[in-house]
């Protein structure tokens, strides 16, 4: 009897281990296995031109072909043209793209137009639900669905990070001097008031060799910074009942005036700075604080900058001297980002879906976010704790911890029907701000334009989209 029980137990144990082995098959492995049925096909994916596209061109595309026999054709599009091209191809019904990179803020427009395939049936069919849950909460909960349907997989942990010179902040003489003047310790600022005081103090002390801070101030970047600061200071974009724009509130005026005042302790001409100018100044040690996307942190540490494609990045003079923190207010903007989607007009939907599942999976995405030349930033819980990534440079653990924190508290870009029209108004507002116009007048005009856009789209229609957006965890600080 005992022998029989032992034998039955052994068989059951074996069966369970087989079952768990089968269950343990990763999303990447499932995608590869299923995709082999489509060997010989070619799928076309729209990807942002430049560094972003090196991922599918040099790494993921060739690897996918090697594993599945499916060729990947990459169509590189400038970011400014991506939405238009996607919509044009959809309207024309060409089926030119099978898979797409989509900025999450565009998703309501693309989904409502019918350009994106609903992914829920594929997620279920190809066993991806569990791995989707391990995408960091802010991205997973806010950048995946329109209504209750999945239209894209968040695939890029874009988030604004506050970078500062920890050698300057740690210098005892500077610390004492700052405390004597302001009465609190010199540390990464928690509020914009502290930021202004620290910035002015450091500029007064180190100018012209170094300025307290600099930001990218060109309107497309300034627009994101306004969105973040406006909300961390308590602003709301609209009255949720009437859909009247409320950006011209006292909070909005305070934010714009604060942004303009800060330019005084930043390098001359900062109003014209874009991504590269700001990067160059920080890496060359000319500024003590800045805010930008995650690649700044990697490049400041010297990670990846030996690659030929990154030869335009100035050699970092500050490697090992950079500290990472959340921007003042503690709720960084998840500025832009990318999600992977399937085009509704694709003739190879399953093959396209399997490719994006594979790209987005735990195993493959971890490799992709570590590509030194690409621009995909960590977006899964496992990315932030990967021993391999943590060992990339001495301060990588602090860097990843900050990104992880940002992925919990980050704020979504405003996402409505025809979002770009609202953003265009904000870009113009920033441009007028640098030209010296009165902040209140700028915002009154912007609010009036927003109201006109809303009226044209339809107040009730837009209200429903706004309310759905505002209900997301990352819309406003919790």
């Amino acid at each position: 009897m005992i022998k029989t029980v032992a034998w039955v137990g052994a068989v059951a144990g074996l069966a369970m281990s087989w079952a768990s082995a089968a269950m343990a098959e990763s999303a990447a492995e499932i995608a590869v296995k299923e995709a082999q049925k489509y060997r010989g096909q070619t799928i076309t994916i729209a990807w942002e031109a430049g560094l972003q596209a090196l991922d599918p061109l040099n790494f993921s595309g060739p690897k996918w072909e090697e594993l599945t026999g499916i060729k990947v054709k990459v169509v590189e599009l400038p970011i400014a043209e991506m939405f238009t091209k996607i919509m044009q191809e959809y309207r024309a019904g060409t089926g030119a793209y099978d898979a797409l990179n989509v900025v999450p803020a565009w998703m309501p427009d693309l989904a409502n137009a019918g350009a994106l395939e609903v992914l829920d049936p594929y997620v279920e069919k190809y066993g991806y639900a569990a791995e989707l849950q391990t995408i960091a909460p802010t991205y997973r909960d806010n950048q995946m669905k329109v209504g209750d349907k999945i239209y894209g997989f968040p695939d890029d942990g874009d988030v604004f990070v506050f970078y500062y010179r920890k050698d300057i902040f740690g210098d005892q003489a500077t610390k004492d001097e700052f405390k004597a003047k302001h009465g609190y310790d010199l540390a990464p600022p928690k509020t914009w008031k502290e930021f202004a005081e620290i910035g002015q103090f450091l500029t007064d002390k180190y100018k012209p060799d170094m300025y307290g801070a600099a930001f990218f101030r060109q309107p497309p970047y300034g627009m994101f910074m306004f969105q973040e600061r406006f909300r961390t200071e308590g602003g709301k974009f609209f009255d949720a009942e009437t859909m009247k724009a409320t950006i011209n509130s006292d909070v909005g005026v305070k934010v714009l005036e604060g942004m303009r005042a800060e330019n005084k302790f930043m390098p001359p001409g900062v109003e014209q700075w874009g991504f590269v100018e700001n990067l160059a100044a920080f890496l060359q040690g000319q500024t003590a604080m800045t805010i930008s996307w995650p690649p700044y942190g990697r490049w400041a540490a010297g990670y990846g900058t030996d690659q030929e494609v990154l030869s335009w990045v100035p050699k970092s003079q500050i490697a090992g001297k950079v500290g990472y923190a959340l921007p003042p207010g503690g709720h960084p903007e998840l500025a832009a980002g990318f999600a992977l989607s399937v085009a509704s007009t694709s003739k190879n939907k399953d093959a396209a879906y399997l490719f994006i599942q594979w790209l987005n999976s735990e195993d493959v995405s971890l490799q992709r976010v570590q590509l030194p030349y690409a621009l995909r930033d960590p977006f899964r819980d496992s990315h932030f704790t990967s021993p391999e990534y943590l060992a990339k440079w001495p301060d990588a653990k602090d860097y990843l911890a900050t990104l992880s924190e940002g992925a919990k508290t980050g704020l979504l870009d405003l996402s409505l029907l025809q979002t770009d029209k609202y953003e265009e108004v904000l870009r113009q507002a920033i441009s007028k701000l640098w030209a010296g116009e009165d902040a209140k007048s700028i915002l009154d005009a912007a609010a009036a334009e927003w109201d006109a856009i809303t009226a044209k789209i339809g107040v009730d229609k837009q209200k429903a989209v706004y309310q759905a957006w505002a209900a997301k965890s990352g819309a406003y600080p919790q």
Partner: protein
Amino acid sequence: MSESATSAMAAGGVAAPAGHAPDRFFKYWLIAPAIFLLLLVGLFPLIYSLIVSFQNITMMEVDTSFAGFINYAQLFKDARLWQALLHTALITIIALPLELVLGLLMAQLFLERMPGRQIFVSLLVLPTVISPIVAGATWRLMFDNRYGPINQIIGWFAGEPMTILWTVNPNLVYPSIFICEVWQWTPFMFLILLAALSNVDKSLTEAAEIDGAGYWRTFFKIVLPSIWPVMAIAILIRGLDLVRIFDVIWALTQGGPGTMTETISIYTYVQGFQQFETSYTAAIAFLVIAMLTVIVVWAIRRMGLAK
């Protein structure tokens, strides 16, 4: 060739083989492909755009039902459109005379034979052959606060580094556009006017000189009337170019700060290709076509070009 054949050809037909009547429509068949092509690429889009302007098509919604005059009514309420037209007029009114006067002065200067004249003329004309978008991008770099030479040179004279934000400061943004525009297109005026001046009958100016006419009198009474037909064409071409100015401003300011330097071409582009207001953009296009037609017809009559 028989007499009947030559007379048939003279009548616009073609020589027909003996016993066949000449094909009276042969000449039309010959030009038909060209006419068809012209209609296809010229008239069809125009008519199609007109139809679209009476619909309500955007990138997001394709509503092809008749929408009446809603887009045309919107034109009159659109303050940004009229501002853009005003900016366009401002640029045209200032840049055109500048280019004309400078071009004329340069042409006068190079009228006389001088050593190295051909080389100088060739060098002066170079800006004209550059693509306007490249010219704009180049000037943007020239005006750049950190890397541009202009602020650096001003700084040398001032004795301290200068921060002049040419494309941000509202007081400097138009001058920077004019500098770029005049730099690029004055040579065009210069070249045309140099050719015109070279063809002025020397005996007339010499006779005027002998009769005691001064320089200005000779210029206004003899030279200007002689070069006027060519000058009028140059003014018309440059005027039309300035009305549709896009590239230089897009590269320099993108219409900013705010919409301060937004011209009608930029506004049309923004509406059509950034905001995807297809039907409204078609209505704007027709407004511009109507306005330009009136101005051009008036200008042609006024300049006496229709004679």
